[in-house]
């Protein structure tokens, strides 16, 4: 048996769901303001538009900081705590700054059988970061996800809106080099 350790010592001071701050207020671009106005017409209540509005905000601002949450809450006449609850529920709303390229590597069963975990190790080594982290230059973020329904190209990943695969340890290195070149 392991010696008893009070797990609460670790938890007591932590936020229930940490969200970082951008340090500045945000506002939709003119184009997104128009899109937002159009969006509202599609729903019976403002509250119903919270998911697409957050998605639009994440597209424009990159991630859902406290400022983004407050802005969306203000737009939809909701308490910020409500939007915070929504953001915390869904894994695809990011509560920390993300790199320009977000690699979401699948390690679910098909990809795992085809060597997905090896690919993950290669990515970690090549990028020098762990899961949930971003390279110091802010270019690439790495996450692990469940099945993306692209088992035909396993092992694969989603990079922003694009699917890439199948990877070998060599090809995934080239993939990262291409991203670095694209990001310059």
């Amino acid at each position, binding site marked *: 048996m392991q010696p008893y350790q009070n*797990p*609460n010592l670790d*938890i*007591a001071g*932590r*936020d*229930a*769901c*940490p*969200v970082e701050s951008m340090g500045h207020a945000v506002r939709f671009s003119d184009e997104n303001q128009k899109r937002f106005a159009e969006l509202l017409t599609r729903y019976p209540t403002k509250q119903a538009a919270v998911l697409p509005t957050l998605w639009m905000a994440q597209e424009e601002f990159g991630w859902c900081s*406290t400022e983004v*949450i*407050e802005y969306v809450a203000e737009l939809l006449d*909701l*308490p*910020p*705590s*409500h939007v*915070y*609850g929504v953001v*915390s*529920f869904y894994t695809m709303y990011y509560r920390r700054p993300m790199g320009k390229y977000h690699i979401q590597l699948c390690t679910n069963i098909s990809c795992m059988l085809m060597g997905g975990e090896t690919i993950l190790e290669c990515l970690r080594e090549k990028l020098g970061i762990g899961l949930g982290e971003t390279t110091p230059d802010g270019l690439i973020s790495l996450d692990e996800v469940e099945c993306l329904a692209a088992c035909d190209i396993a092992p694969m990943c989603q990079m922003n809106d694009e699917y890439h695969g199948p990877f070998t340890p060599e090809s995934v290195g080239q993939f990262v080099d291409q991203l670095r070149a694209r990001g310059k």
Partner: protein
Amino acid sequence: MAKVTIQINGQEVQAEEGLNLIEAARAAGVEIPHFCYHPGLGVDGNCRQCLIEIEGVSKLQIACNSFVKEGLAFRTDSDRVKQMQAGVLEFLFLNHPLDCPICDQSGECLLQDYYMSNGKYESRLDLPKHHKRKAVPVGPRVMLDAERCVLCTRCTRFCDQVTKTGELRIVNRGYRAEITTFPGRELDNDYSLNTVDICPVGALTSRDFRFQKRVWHLRTAKSLCTGCARGCNTYLEFDDGKAYRYRPRENMAVNDFWMCDPGRVTYKELNDNRLDVAIVEGQERPFHEALELAGSWINEAVGSGKGSDAVVLVSPQCSTEVLYAAKKFALDVLGTTRVGGGNVRPAGVEDEILRRADTNPNSRGLEALGLTRNPADLLSDGGSVLLIFGDDPIGFQKDLADGIQTFQRVIYVGSNENSTSGAAGLALPMAPHSECDGTFVNFEGRVQRFRKAFTPRGDALWGPNLLARIAEFTGDEFGWNGPKDLWQELTSNEPTFANLEYAQVGDEGRLLDAGQDAGRDAGVTAPASGR
């Protein structure tokens, strides 16, 4: 609404059509366990604890969201129901810490109650429990223990529906879900402590009451909040001559199920800074000596024909009984018509929920007895003897000190030491509303009773009795055989209170002009605990 016949556990009962089954069962004396449903917050249906078996419906249904209709029959005692309720409870308990020995909710916790009534299973969990944050100050008055929470959302719905401030939400999901506020914000509305009352478990506790007392040691008296003119109905909880907390008492005509945070702390006045003994010129003196001194001062004034020169300054902080006795003392013993008083306190915060700008509990009672006068006017000409009842005129209005100083003799009768008791030549201890029976009349003219919790502290006496003791030295016939006796005299002498028996006032109060009384809102009722 129409009464219809339904069957609960095979027993035929009459129930109001459209009432939900938790309330219908409760009215028939059957308790259906539940966490998320609260009569003041409506149906949410998330906890699934109130599952019952309705005849003709194959699956178990939640009682909170099923409603009474003619011929409905349901069971709360079948094996299926019991097994399902125990199963739901097992899920709720899965990660619940075994905190009871150090948990403040212990003794008034629904998890404990339902485990004993509907659980009593052996734990099947052989994995470590998931732990969440403990002792998180989510607000200046409320402490959160996230791992005790059953996620019933009563608190979040309270902040959405009642205060409309929406501070609290559930974040994350699955077993990691917990209650919290937006980063950097607090649960800091004027009604935040109601979330502690309605929390069915020990997740939200009052930072003021935490670790002060085990609840099973507390005794309870029906009382009233003295924080403002609303007169929220409360339970005053006490032990051994000390008040520990107020809890709101349901009264749909006055405060529903709630009370405000500033009102809640007014119980502290009943403990702190009390005037327990008689004080003469700053020195503590035996009570009978002080009474004799008061009697001699009054005899001196009345004997020299200056009785009509005396002033009795009363306060809307006093009970109707004390006001009546003071009025009678002025008219009959002193022979003065200079009796009355009014608000000396700064205006409070008024909101659309409960709080009123008038921070006195009995302004309408004062008015109904014809005693409303401007304190400054009353004091303006000075005089022989000044008798001050309750409150702290000097502390709240410095200007009044000058008027008070112009009197030859100043007697203060009150419950707390303050600037006025210090300035008076003689200060006599009077029992506050925790230590006697009496009434206040709230802002809409509703006469409400408060009950004695414990015997008066120190030498303190019920106000009318104190006056009777002074009158012994003046030789006047004066005094009553307790509050009920006084009330009977009051109702026959004061036309505004005519024919208003204690029995009519009851627990819900009664409007002075009973014709206006629309009565209690029809519909839901909750048990005394406000669950």
